[in-house]
């Protein structure tokens, strides 16, 4: 393997990690701004123009805060749990293509880190191990609220993961491939949200539960559990949980945009291939707006209803969607 290829991979990986981290910082800003507008408040407006430096100010504040470790906590796991939570959120988008192939003075630069026929499977694997951080955080804090919050989060995430995985099977069947690059190329004739509307709706409901956002933010229901699994965390360790939640929001929006909304496809892509990442991020911003919109307008639903909804409505619906899609694809002979 030539060193040039390895260097290219390293640079692309660093770009992905940095954009996920920056995505986290500016999603908090975006959320506070949009929430303020929806609730007819002013919102953050002090740090820099349009409060654009607010995330920096928040970061500095959290770094200088005192970090407390409960006396009876399991110290090793207590310190490791935030790290375990944040890593899957940062690496899950490694398989998402940001664009086609750029031609810079004869050097062909593909705007994707990797394009394997395993992309969807990789996403499911990473989401399936992302529950550990939260479970371990709840257990190691040695606190009843944290423990219950952690267990709730885990139960909720494994339940909705089934519907999530099945909702991605529909597009895979239509496209006939698990490679996200090919799935995007297939959508030049029309976005998959048109061919797979049920799968798209199930996906968007399931990801809200998967990233523990309102109205499915059971793990941190303040009235019942103080703050859920991160009750005992402070300073940068708390910030890491926060980062995991927002980076996951960005990641699932990016995957949803790629699978259902045409990914990096958009107008003028033939003339200027560098527009690919721009279109992708515009779609991510729209989906993030929907996340915030839902949070601003709907109340939290009860925990048993949440589980019943996941198992008794979403899961059978997703199964039926897979069955219908498979039959249609079998009779039409695929695309």
């Amino acid at each position: 393997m030539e060193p040039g290829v390895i260097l290219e991979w390293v640079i692309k990986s660093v770009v992905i990690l940095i954009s996920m981290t920056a995505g986290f910082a500016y999603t908090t800003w975006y959320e506070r701004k949009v929430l303020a507008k929806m609730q007819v408040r002013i919102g953050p407006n002090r740090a820099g123009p349009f409060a654009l430096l607010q995330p920096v100010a928040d970061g500095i504040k959290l770094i200088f805060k005192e970090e407390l470790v409960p006396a009876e906590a399991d110290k090793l796991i207590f310190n490791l749990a935030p790290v375990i939570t944040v890593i899957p959120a940062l690496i899950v988008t490694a398989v998402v293509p940001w664009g086609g192939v750029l031609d810079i003075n004869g050097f062909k630069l593909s705007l994707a880190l990797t394009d394997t026929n395993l992309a969807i499977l990789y996403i499911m694997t990473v989401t399936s191990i992302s529950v550990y951080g939260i479970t371990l955080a709840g257990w190691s804090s040695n606190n009843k609220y944290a423990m219950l919050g952690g267990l709730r989060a885990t139960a909720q995430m494994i339940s909705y993961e089934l519907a999530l995985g099945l909702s991605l099977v529909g597009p895979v069947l239509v496209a006939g491939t698990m490679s996200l690059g090919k799935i995007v190329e297939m959508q030049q004739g029309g976005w998959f949200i048109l061919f797979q509307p049920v799968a798209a709706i199930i996906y968007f409901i399931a990801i809200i539960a998967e990233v523990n956002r309102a109205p499915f933010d059971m793990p941190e229901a303040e009235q019942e559990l103080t703050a859920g699994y991160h009750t005992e965390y402070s300073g940068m360790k708390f910030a890491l949980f926060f980062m995991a939640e927002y980076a996951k929001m960005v990641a699932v929006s990016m995957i949803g945009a790629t699978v259902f909304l045409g990914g990096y496809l958009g107008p003028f892509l033939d003339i200027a291939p560098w527009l690919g990442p721009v279109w992708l991020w515009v779609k991510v911003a729209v989906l993030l707006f929907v996340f915030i919109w839902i949070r601003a307008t709907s109340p939290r639903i009860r925990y048993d209803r949440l589980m019943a909804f996941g198992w008794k409505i979403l899961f059978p619906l997703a199964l039926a969607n897979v069955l219908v899609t498979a039959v249609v694809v079998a009779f039409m002979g695929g695309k």
Partner: protein
Amino acid sequence: MNLDTVFFLILAAAAVITAAGMLLNRNAIYAALFLILNFATVGIIYFTLSAPFVALTQVTVYAGAIMVLFLFVIMLLGAEKLPYGEGSLRTQRLVAIGLAVVLLVEAGYFMLVKQPGLFLNPAQAGEFGTVEQIGRALFNIYILPFEITSLILLAAVVGAIMLTRIEKIQRAGQTGGEEQR
């Protein structure tokens, strides 16, 4: 030794160390975490053997689903700490030592006397491990075993749900069926 062999030896060492850590740790949570690391390492070994589907399924099913339930049970029962002391383990220990000697002799015999291709060349593996190949094999050649397995799993699921409902049904019977939904 080429790069693949070095990579394999590192992974093998990691797999052995995590397995030993799982066995030797007295805290059940740490033991479970070591087992998860072990599954992940074995998953990477499958990757180097050009079986990416098996690798990712290994991590998803074992590390992602089964071990989460293990952690659940350990946490809910509060069974983290094993009590110190020997108890009934003494006879088992003797048997274990005997079996370990047999295993070591066997492994030594194969490595030193027979010397088979210890280090598989991943290039030999070819295309058999891709998603398409596994799907074709599973749904064409092995369709009957696949369907039988799915029926057995379905029976297990129904059984598990019945076990959770028995208590509810009994309670409903005692109170005159008021609680029955």
